[in-house]
């Protein structure tokens, strides 16, 4: 009898422990490959921040995505074309496109980010003025294009000439820099999940960019985030669209392979 009671108590105790563990544990966004330890920044975010991202109305980045949607059909430049003139409905033609970037640019002999593709279309096909990397229009359009791949797995082709860039990006990622003498990997590999002051470090996965950052109070490009990280270790940041950041983008996006595109994500 006594044994039985103890057994029941032990069971209860274990049950209680299991229940206690669950709500605190990280929530994974529905992801095909849950066996791998690749985790979206979403799973590190506070529940309130996750709720902002989950509700398309509440997500403030949508104000910019709306700009992108408007610009998609806006005729601009001497050629008298809009994005829609060539590509038709974005929901169809851009589905899955954003998940593949960066791609190889045979002309420039560098990886090509979505922002570069947009400006290439604008200057060559539309004969319009290029947009600045961090302008509202560029953020909006990049977001709008990538949004069409939401939920699809990040899938960067790193074969052929991209392989060298992947290696270059990986080297950048693991190179110590700045006064603090820190590499990307020190935070996002060795200490992912730990606190850095009041913030929780994530794996630094880039599947939600352009991301609305509550700190910025607006969305920002991936290269803005790179600059921010470089600044924080007191290193000299590179320019948006520079070869260094394109290599890094190639590596970081490849690292996020299989994670669903979350653009536009919301992070603290």
């Amino acid at each position, binding site marked *: 009898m006594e044994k039985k009671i103890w057994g029941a108590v032990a069971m209860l105790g274990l049950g209680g422990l299991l229940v206690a563990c669950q709500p605190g544990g990280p929530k994974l966004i529905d992801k095909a490959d849950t066996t791998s330890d690749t985790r979206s920044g979403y799973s590190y975010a506070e529940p309130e921040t996750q709720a902002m991202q989950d509700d398309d*109305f*509440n997500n*403030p980045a*949508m*104000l*910019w995505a*709306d*700009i992108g949607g408007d610009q998609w059909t806006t005729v601009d430049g001497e050629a008298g074309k809009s994005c829609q003139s060539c590509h038709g409905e974005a929901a169809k033609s851009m589905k899955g496109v954003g998940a593949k970037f960066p791609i190889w640019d045979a002309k420039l002999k560098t990886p090509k980010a979505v922002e570069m593709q947009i400006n290439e279309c604008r200057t060559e096909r539309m004969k319009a003025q290029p947009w600045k990397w961090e*302008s*509202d*229009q560029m953020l909006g359009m990049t977001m709008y294009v990538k949004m069409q791949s939401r939920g699809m797995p990040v899938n960067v082709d790193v074969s052929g000439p991209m392989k060298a860039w992947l290696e270059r990006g990986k080297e950048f990622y693991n190179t110590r820099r700045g006064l603090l003498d820190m590499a990307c990997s020190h935070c996002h590999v060795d200490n992912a999940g730990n606190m850095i002051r009041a913030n929780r470090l994530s794996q630094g996965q880039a599947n939600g960019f352009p991301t609305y950052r*509550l700190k910025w*109070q*607006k969305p920002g490009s991936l290269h803005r985030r790179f600059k921010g990280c470089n600044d924080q270790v007191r290193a000299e940041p590179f320019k948006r669209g520079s070869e260094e950041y394109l290599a890094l983008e190639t590596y970081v996006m490849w690292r996020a392979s299989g994670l669903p595109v979350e653009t536009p994500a919301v992070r603290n």
Partner: protein
Amino acid sequence: MSKKPRIKVPKKAAKGEIVQIKTLISHNMETGTRKDKSGKLIPRNIINKFTCTLNGKEVLSANLYPSVAANPYFAFHVRATESGTFEFTWTDDEGKEIKASNEMTVA
């Protein structure tokens, strides 16, 4: 680049039903305490007033203060009494008024 406010009002509602209205607007909400690169204070420019009217009658009015974050979001509930137009007005410190409206049919 001006961004249009986002508004969500149900198109139809039953009489007496309580409906939710959501609004989201883009605004810097400059607090007035930040300094620019030369050390000068950046003047305050926030949305200080938000109102919502139904057919000209006020249903909600709010005063905002500098601790409200950029791109303010409002969600509130209204009892559907009559069909008509909801008008939303945001007023900022520069006196700029941003307006938007949305129809709702009460059956």
